[in-house]
């Protein structure tokens, strides 16, 4: 069982290339998150995998069999839609049962399975409820139950929590993580929320403008973003430009950081958030600038330093020693990385 394999998926529409040569694999039991800003093509990619959209080029294969020419209802994949897309004229039980009837499960088994799934998603006994009487969270759970009921060989989730409020989202995300963890099938989870992706996925694929720019385990990607886009997308926005000197240290508007191997010349550096501390004096490895903003946030305070027209933000423990607005400040940055353009 090799799972899902996508090779060279390209999609052109209206004169634009929405997906460019995307390839990825998802093995059984793994949850891959497709993470990216809106418009990056992740939903299109999902629809191509589902068969709801035909690619301009590329192949979709599952367990080494090319399914590119199969219509969506024959691929055996399951999908949970943003905004649930539950059938309004059927009750909860009939919705969940829908795929089972298509697959011709015998009645008693269907009933059992529906019960099983509703228990799984935490809605026992909801069979006869009407869709328009359910809350947002309940609807998403039913949508999940419906997608999982016919034992799909791949599960896709298209921003399933996007329309829910934050507390509900967090709670459901936790439950989803549990459920997805127990599945033995590959799952693809599309989201624009980095925290969600980190929480739910075994691997993350970050997409930008129709391409996959970085694939890896969450910790990997976090520790080595490699490109500025990924770094910023993951929330690490302290990217500064500077000149690398022959000794390997890079001179930036905030000070010298390094050493970073590489040829002399311009370089983009990421000042990582781990281990930053307030210091009293500038020096190598210390970011010095004017504190443009000091935002108190409870246990931690965000200090924004400016220098040479650039801006960096640090999250520091709240203390009396924090600079006041407009005053110069120095922050030691122990971890830096060079980023590709």
């Amino acid at each position, binding site marked *: 069982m090799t799972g899902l394999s996508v090779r060279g998926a390209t999609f052109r529409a209206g004169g634009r290339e929405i997906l460019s040569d995307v390839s990825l694999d998802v093995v059984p039991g793994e949850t891959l998150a497709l993470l990216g800003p809106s418009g990056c093509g992740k939903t299109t990619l999902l629809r191509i995998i589902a068969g709801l959209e035909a690619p301009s080029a590329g192949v979709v294969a599952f367990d080494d069999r090319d399914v*590119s020419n199969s219509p969506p*209802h024959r691929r055996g994949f399951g999908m949970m839609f943003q905004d649930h897309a539950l*059938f309004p004229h059927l009750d909860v039980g009939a919705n969940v049962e829908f795929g089972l009837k298509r697959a011709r499960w015998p009645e008693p088994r269907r009933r059992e399975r529906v019960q099983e799934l509703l228990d799984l998603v935490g809605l026992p006994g909801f069979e006869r409820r009407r869709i328009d009487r359910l809350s947002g969270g309940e609807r998403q759970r039913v949508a999940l139950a*419906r997608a999982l009921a016919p034992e799909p060989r791949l599960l896709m989730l298209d921003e399933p929590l996007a329309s829910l409020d934050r507390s509900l989202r967090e709670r459901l995300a936790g439950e989803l993580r549990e459920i997805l963890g127990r599945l033995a099938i590959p799952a693809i989870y599309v989201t624009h929320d980095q925290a969600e992706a980190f929480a739910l996925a075994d691997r993350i694929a970050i997409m930008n403008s129709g391409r996959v720019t970085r694939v890896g385990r969450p910790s990997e990607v976090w520790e080595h973003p490699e490109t500025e886009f990924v770094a910023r997308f993951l929330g690490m926005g302290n990217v500064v430009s500077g000149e690398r000197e022959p000794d390997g240290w890079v001179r930036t508007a905030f000070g010298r950081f390094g050493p970073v191997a590489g040829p002399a010349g311009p370089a983009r550096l990421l000042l990582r958030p781990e281990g930053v501390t307030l210091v009293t004096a500038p020096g190598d490895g210390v970011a010095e600038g004017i504190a443009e903003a000091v935002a108190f946030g409870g246990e931690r305070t965000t200090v924004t330093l400016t220098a040479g027209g650039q801006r960096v933000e640090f999250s520091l423990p709240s203390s009396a020693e924090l600079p006041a607005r407009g005053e110069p400040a120095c922050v030691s940055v122990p971890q830096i990385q060079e980023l590709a353009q």
Partner: protein
Amino acid sequence: MDRSVDEKRPSLTARARERRPLLLVVPAGLLLAAFLAYPLQGILRESFQRDGGIGLLVEDTYYLERGWFTLWQATVSAALTLLLAVPLAWLLACHAFPGKRTIEAVLMVPFVLPTIVVAVAFSALVGPSGVANDLLTRIPGIEEPPIRILNTVWAILLAHVFYNVAVAGRIIATGWRGLDSRVEESAAMLGAGPAARFFLITLPALRNSLLAAASLVFLFCFTSFGVVLILGGPQFGTLETEIYRESLFLFRLPVAGALALAQLVVTFAAIVINARLQQATPQRTEARSTTPWDRKSAALGAAILALLLLLTAAPMAALVERSFHGGDGYTLRYYTMLDDNVRGQALFVAPIEAVRNSVVFALATVAVALPVGTLAAIGSVRARSTLAEALVQLPLGVSSVTLGLGFLVTMDQPPLNLRESPALVVIAHSLIAVPFVTRTVSARLRSLDPRLRDAAAMLGAGPARTFFAVEAPLLKGAIGVAAVLSFATSMGEFGATLLIARPEYPTIPVAIFRYLGQPGALNYGQALAMSTVLMAVTGSTFFLAERLVRVRTGGVS
């Protein structure tokens, strides 16, 4: 895994697959080809082979003036109708009130009345000695009957509104019900008052329904015949009345043929424009909840209802009152005498027979038009073909006189040797009913959430299964409405039945005409009684149909 796919293949099969639903339009296409195109070409060929005054069309500005008047009165009628239909739609879509269903049914009845009955009803209400003037002249100081609208352009416009306001209101109400009230609510939170919300949010969102209603009313009024002829008079002529005169009285067939073609061009353009301007705006599939009344809206609602009932129900009420009014007080005899063939006439029409025939024809029309029209709607929406949808609506714009003559000329050879068959009447009615069904069903289909189909596909349902399990149930309401409209068009004898009616199966309008064809107060009274019977039958049918539709769809429609 390295099998690469030929780049060209997906697009070809994809395109073929996309057009495949057009197969569903074939039944409608066959109906139109055999019973619209074929008879039309027959009569047009016959017409243009004769000589007779076609030069007139160019020399005389008369026909140009008539064409212009046709366009003008159709546009103004549509605008006026919409002006009243929008408030009506508001009432129907957003509020509940006692007697709502009855009022809806009553408002639809004018749709099926023959024009001569409408003329009599209007006369009974606003004629020189009608109820209105009667009441007004009792006011001291008013000597002469002040209301003089008969035989003016206002009579035409008002009668058009009378006929069409219910249908237009219904179309707009359907669209209104599908609007997301949350959008309006957020506008309210942003400081928009009711009027601002209506003009800035609701009206633009209703664009599709408004267009659909306006274009339908425009089509009806453009091809309007009886209203212009009877309520307007000879100084007002439209293309259709000219075609009538030129074909059936002056017998200048080439002129009639040319006018029929001109009419077809304009109406087809209107149909296509409407189809193009319709956008697919997915709507909520849940029923919009009704807003509770407050003092202002209740007053407004009451005023609107009063105006509408005045316009539509009052003329009919006046007519009904007259039917019970003998020369010497109230009486039932016009009704009891309906069944008496006093003169032992061979062509006497017993009312029960007429009612039965009208209803049977109407049911048969529904049986034909509903499946044909629904299939065409599904096919043209799935295949995304506005052309297919427009073509199916063509019969709405064809001159019924020309088509009737076309039937006479062509339907006498096998395999279409239908000239002597009552089936031809059903076909003629269906030709008009099919466009109604297609419009109604396709509008609903387009408004369904496309993700429902995706979800069904992901759950293993192929296109056919998806349709039956997911879309069809959600179309039930629209199909129900379409059935009611088909029934109504058949009862109202729209279409070319004048020349192909069978005497073995007289219908209610025929019965009414028999009485109105001769002088005598008795004859007149019986005509009124028969008209009341027609109104009662159609009114109750609408009422019952509404109940069936609502019950079946449980409000989700």
